[in-house]
């Protein structure tokens, strides 16, 4: 159990090992580790940012959707109102038109009636003259009895 030259040999081996580790082993490995660490940190940050962006986008989309819904509801309301208006308007127009048409028809009927009355009066007076002529068996002188005839035809017209 004595200390001897083995010690020196071991020290040399140790020195070589440390030198080699320092030169060829530690730097590349620790470099890779650090680089990966920073990469992971970047990735995590990016992921977080992406998440935030997504949330913001979702919020924005919800807003847009709500606005669109509101807008469409407004449009529907407006359209309904407009339709009601149009219906009311056409109702009014139709009524007016109807009234006008009725009026025209009535006027026409009146006219026809008058014309028929006129014709009837003429025919009746002619018929009456004929009948009266036959009854009297004599010629009625239009010129002589003008006044009388006029009276009769007037009376007939009033009847």
């Amino acid at each position, binding site marked *: 159990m004595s200390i001897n030259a083995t010690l020196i040999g*071991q020290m040399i081996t140790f020195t070589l090992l440390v030198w080699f*580790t320092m030169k060829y082993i530690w730097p590349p*490995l620790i470099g890779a580790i650090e680089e990966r660490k920073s990469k992971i940190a970047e990735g995590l940050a990016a992921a977080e940012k992406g998440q935030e962006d997504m949330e913001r986008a979702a919020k924005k989309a919800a807003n847009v959707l709500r606005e669109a819904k509101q807008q469409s509801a407004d449009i529907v309301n407006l359209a309904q109102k407009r339709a009601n208006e149009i219906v009311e308007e056409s109702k009014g127009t139709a009524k007016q038109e109807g009234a006008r048409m009725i009026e025209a028809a009535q006027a026409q009927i009146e006219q026809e009636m008058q014309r028929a009355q006129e014709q009837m009066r003429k025919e009746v007076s002619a018929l009456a003259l004929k009948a009266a002529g036959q009854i009297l068996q004599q010629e009625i002188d239009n010129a002589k009895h003008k006044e009388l005839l006029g009276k009769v035809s007037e009376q007939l017209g009033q009847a």
Partner: protein
Amino acid sequence: MASEEHAAEGATGYIVHHLTPLSVGEGFWTLHLDTLFFSAVLGALFIWFFKVAAEKATIGVPGTSQAFVEMIIEFVDQQVKDTFHGKSELIAPLGLTIFVWVFMWNFMDLFPVDILPLVASMMGMEYMRVVPSTDLNATFALSISVFLLIIFYSIKIKGVFGFAKELTCTPFGPWMMPFNLLLKLVEEIAKPISLALRLFGNLYAGELIFILIALLPWYIQPLLGFPWAIFHILIITLQAFIFMVLTIVYLSMAHEDH
């Protein structure tokens, strides 16, 4: 030093045989070939495994070996960052080397105590002590290297004068100079000695217990050997970790300028 001699002594002979290193040379110039061989092989294994991982290192998804190596690297790096607040190219790789190398030394302890010596004896080698950390030379080689680094950095950071001042004028001021110096010398020299002896003691004792278990009847051996091996996994990791952490602490103390 013949094996027959030991064999004749029964249990004691078995134990002593197991704890005798394969050595060449005489006196101070004795070399423990087993210690040198196994620590070099383990060191080469460490270098090879980590070098391959370092060459294939990618910042993308790491492979299995890279992930494993990175786990160790990050573990060591974290220890260094927690303790040492300067900037140093050396300390973290030094810590890594110590941690992995010492762990591998200690791991040799988990091989069944008779296997490698048996193989060695087949190859004509009489003695074989496979755990380098049961050799004081190995543990002291580490701790003395660390000690030299402590002195080097103390002088580099604080200057010769600053270091001398720290040795002589703290903790009690310049009027107690001899006493301060004595205190400081003990403090400094205690560092490598405690580092080396702690590791050596733990592993030597652990190995000794494995050898003692191996002396028991075969049906008791698993009963004791298995729990002890499990427990020993903790010890070998812990000792490697302690050696690394204390090295980092001592070196960061050397870097601190008062």
